[in-house]
């Protein structure tokens, strides 16, 4: 049952996404959790760690692990969102869910599963553990809302791991949070037979003596105007 009236069809953060980041892709899923976690660390939260889009005004960095911004290098405390192996599962044979008999369009569906890895880095062991605890319980408590708002099929309870040393320019600590999300992946295939038939028709209508001649003209000029 959906908790929101109009859930998205595929997981994606709010706002315009670049065309290279497809809704439901692993980058989009990372973006969803990035935005969700950032909302926990706003100025209104009352926490000592306030996230700001301009890192120089913020007290915590909350970024995707793909971040390469120099200002974020060695910044502490920080929360990084990453993913592990993305698996597209198979629930039905051939993933097929339907076909439009008139157009030949076929519909497919699968459940994609991806482990999300969140790492809380801080110079103090207690700080790292506290951040991980905050994020872990926040995600767990918000699980139903996140699933419904961002069209996740399932979200497992988070596992907050042991705080480990993570030496860099000074001693650091990292606590990992991991959980799995599942979500629908849908796609369609347009049958190629009608397309091929369309090409054959074009060749016949063009008036050239052979298909080879027709394709040579296209290759040389970029277009093949009908003869006569």
């Amino acid at each position, binding site marked *: 049952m959906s908790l929101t009236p109009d859930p998205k069809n595929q997981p994606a953060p709010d706002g315009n996404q670049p065309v290279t980041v497809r809704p439901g892709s692993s980058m989009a899923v990372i973006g969803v959790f990035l935005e969700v976690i950032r909302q926990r660390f706003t100025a209104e939260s009352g926490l000592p760690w306030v996230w700001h889009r301009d890192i120089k005004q913020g007290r915590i960095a909350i970024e995707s692990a*793909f971040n*390469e911004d120099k200002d974020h*290098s060695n910044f502490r*405390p*920080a929360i*990084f969102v990453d993913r592990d192996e993305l698996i597209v599962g198979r629930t039905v044979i051939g993933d097929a869910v339907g076909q439009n008999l008139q157009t030949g369009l076929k519909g497919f569906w699968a459940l994609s599963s991806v482990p999300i890895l969140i790492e809380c880095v801080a110079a*103090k062991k207690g*700080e790292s553990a506290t951040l991980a605890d905050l994020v872990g319980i926040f995600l767990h408590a918000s699980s139903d809302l996140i699933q419904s708002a961002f069209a996740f099929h399932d979200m497992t309870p988070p596992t907050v791991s042991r705080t480990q040393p993570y030496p860099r*320019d000074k001693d650091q600590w990292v606590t990992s949070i991991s959980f799995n999300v599942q979500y629908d992946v849908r796609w369609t295939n347009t049958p190629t037979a009608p397309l091929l038939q369309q090409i054959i028709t074009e060749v016949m209508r063009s008036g050239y003596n052979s298909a080879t001649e027709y394709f040579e003209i296209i290759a040389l000029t970029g277009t093949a105007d009908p003869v006569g």
Partner: protein
Amino acid sequence: MASVQITRTTALFPSSVFVQWDISRDEAGEHTVDIFRSGSPTGPWQAVAIALVDAYHVLDDKFNLPPPSGQNDLHVGLNLLTLSRDVYYYVLVSPPSGEANRFQSAVVAVEPGLDARTRLFKRKILRDEATAFRRLNGIPIAVLKRRRWGKVCRECYDEVNREATREHCPFCLGTAFEGGYWAPVYVRGRKSTAPVQTQLTAHGDSDAKVVTFTLLDYPNLVRKDVLVDLRRNDRYEVQMVYGTELKGVTVHQSVTASLLSRSSVEYSVLVDPNNIPSLY
């Protein structure tokens, strides 16, 4: 059990002694420190400083004061740092629970463990090195000793875990003790060159630069103390200290230190960039 240990008694040219101590505490709060000096290990003792609260060292430079007006006490003007004379110190600490629980250090001589001849060598080496730092290859450095006793942080100290829980705590700067660092001590030292090593990590690039400082043997540095290159305001966290020794007594300190990123809280400690190191 609480204890105090004198970690440095270094004779400085022309006539002063740098005395440093380290308190192993049982209780949180302000520890009041009294320092006494004597010409013999059994006294009589003369107070050098009384009721110090915000200090981990004292510079005892009251040796060569002129005699008080109208008096002709020859002992006042003596150079107590002659090699034939031993000067002894001890430190008395009053914990927050009161004077009934006071504890004191062992009596420590200036440059303990060295005979007069070796002591002379040490002073000569120190002076030559200090001259080289001043005239040739030294840079001004502020030493920020991390607080390891005193009032625990009112904001972020966790009584159960016994540690600070925020690096950027405005009260303790992540050290667990209010103030974070003792007042800076300005010295000169030599800094090696080193490249910034950028490593590719799971979270993007990570920069690290580890350099070696050569300092005289005071203040006694330990891991996590901070060195400030005053000309650039670069701040380094001490990772490892190993000394050049003369018959088991430290003459120089070689300090391996890591450059801290500009977002580190250690950059919020104020130092005077125009300070000219007065020691030596």
